[in-house]
């Protein structure tokens, strides 16, 4: 079937079925469902949002509002590993710009971008609440404190 909308028309609906099974089909479940969808697909595919809207009985406009409001949600596919460089005041002073530059140089992407092989996405974030160990870089689930540009390479390797 030709879907004019995007190249993502072939999302695996099995994943969203399993997610929807876990929660009552009602509006208060929305954020939890979206969080699980984000985790399962690494982004919120349009068709899945439409499906969630229908199944939970929440208007699509409300689903889209929530999906665009929270930074934790993304409407474009994200890399398997998400790199967040903190640019809060403490991290900025202690060298965040150098860290961003290093990641950009190594991966060839700008903040907000994703590598072509979908291995990594790069984002800048505001204070992550760990100023004592500034500058902070978060690679996947790992918090790297007192991060140094030279030490980042080890965390930016593909395939483990």
């Amino acid at each position: 079937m030709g879907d004019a909308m995007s190249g993502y028309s072939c999302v695996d609906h099995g994943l969203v079925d399993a997610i929807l099974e876990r929660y009552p089909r009602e509006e208060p479940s929305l954020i939890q469902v979206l969080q699980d969808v984000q985790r399962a697909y690494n982004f919120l595919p349009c068709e899945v949002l439409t499906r969630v809207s229908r199944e939970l009985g929440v208007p699509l406009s409300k689903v889209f509002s929530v999906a665009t409001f929270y930074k934790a949600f993304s409407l474009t596919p994200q890399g398997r590993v998400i790199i967040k460089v903190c640019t809060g005041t403490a991290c900025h002073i202690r060298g965040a710009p150098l860290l961003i530059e290093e990641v950009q140089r190594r991966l060839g992407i700008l903040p907000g971008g994703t590598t072509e092989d979908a291995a990594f996405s790069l984002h800048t974030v505001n204070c992550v609440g760990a100023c004592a160990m500034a500058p902070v870089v978060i690679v996947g689930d790992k918090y790297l404190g007192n991060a140094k540009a030279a030490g980042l390479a080890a965390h930016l390797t593909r395939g483990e």
Partner: protein
Amino acid sequence: MPTLTIDGHTVHADHGQFLLAACRSAGIQIPTLCDHPAVEPYGGCRLCVVDVTRPEWNGWCKMVVACLFPVEDGIVVHTASTRVIEVRKVVLDLLLARCPDTPLVRDLAARHGILATSYVRNQQPTDCILCGLCTRICDRMGMSAIGSVDRGAGREIATPFREPPAACIGCLACAEICPTGFIRYESGTARRKIWDKDFDMLRCPRCGRSHITVAQADFFAGRGGVPRSYFEICDVCKRKDLAVAATRLACATETPAR
């Protein structure tokens, strides 16, 4: 019945009434941008701020938005204290930075003595003040076709995925309630277009006037209870029918009395 003092006047309010309504019933004007009788209060524009205190609070007072504050017995309200006016001015100053060319905002700001914003002027001026009237009326109509999208400075009113909204029936309620005319549409005898979605118009079978969209008639008829033909006849013709029926009824009741 809660009794309160508003700007020195004693006011008797209804239980559960919001302070804004109580102020208005006492003849006190408070500027608002997001309040509308057709929709629930929202507290979005923050223009209706007032000071609330009690004699036993020793001069301490709190600032609340009048449109969302339920009246309480014994409160003392100041709707135009220096503090309140200052806050309103900040709100208008910010709004003017966002919407520097919007007549509604400019006039209201000017009336508060603000002729130019003291903040950085928006580089992409918009007429949308984010009052949320359009989304609330759309919810009220039962469509919820549009919503608030994104957040912070980038927040805007948009359709899901910024595409023509499936839920929209082309009723124009959003465009009509919008206080700044930000929501554009085209409406002719055959077609109507809003939110980039095209609609076929329905002609009244009596007078031939295009009065609603086919999608509106389908929607209203789909709710059940009333046949579709009821929605196909325009309001003008319906009123005529009613007038004719009323006259007949009047004649009929007059005759036996003679």
